[in-house]
């Protein structure tokens, strides 16, 4: 399973999101060291990498939270919704867990 963690330094949410991703991987039986971290530093790179905001987590190339087609690719903090409907700067860990489990089932 390939796990990519894309982040931009201008948004302070990435350490928390990475720690939660590591915890989910650990609890699902994966080595957290599988995570490939990639810093996005320019708008050009954001467009090239189809980066909708920081942080973005890809599992086997799929975004754990599909983003809107109309969403621009740029250096910005990404808006997530937690399962209770509230806004967050990081994805709901249960959504990340579901994405990991889907990837496991598809292997």
């Amino acid at each position, binding site marked *: 399973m390939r796990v990519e963690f894309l982040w931009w330094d201008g948004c302070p949410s990435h350490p928390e999101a990475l720690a939660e991703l590591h915890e989910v991987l650990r609890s699902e039986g994966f080595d957290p060291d599988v995570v490939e971290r990639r810093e996005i530093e320019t708008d050009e790179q954001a467009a090239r990498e189809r980066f909708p905001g920081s942080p973005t987590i890809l599992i086997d190339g799929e975004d754990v939270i599909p983003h809107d087609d109309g969403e621009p690719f740029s250096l*910005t903090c990404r808006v997530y919704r937690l399962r209770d409907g509230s806004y967050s700067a990081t994805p709901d860990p249960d959504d990340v867990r579901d994405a990991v489990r889907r990837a496991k089932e598809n292997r």
Partner: protein
Amino acid sequence: MTVAIREKAPDFTLPDTEGREHSLQQGEVAAVVFTCNHCPYALAWHDRILQVARDYDDVRFFAINPNDADRYPGDSFDAMRERVERDGGWPLPYLRDESQEVARAYGAKTTPHVFVIDADGAVRYAGAPDADHRDPGLEAAWLREALDAVLAGEEPARAETEPVGCSVKWRQ
């Protein structure tokens, strides 16, 4: 650099989403919140801040969006208007700082970045609304604590906290 605690708060005259101009008023306690439309931190704290505005009718509140709308179209004046309309109105004016001069004068770093100003026009609190954007149960406790102290003529227990959020999007 962020305006220092006990320094005079920079005055401003800025338009709200209906075109009315707003300024600080001498003799009134005020809360100035730099915020925006596109940032998850600002969105997460938004309802808590609005509730504080509803709860303190003896305080004048201002929400100010200073972000560069060329790079972040979601923060344009039109988008601000649409948001307030969609919400059926806000209990505080949502002001546009197009020139970014007000944000620079305050030294706003993030959205949100909160400032509490006493009736003499001095900044008495600067920082985050509370300790965690993901915990609505905190109810913007640091902002409320500062307002309660200033309204009682006392020193806020926490005069400064680290603002947490998206960086203000300055024009390049």
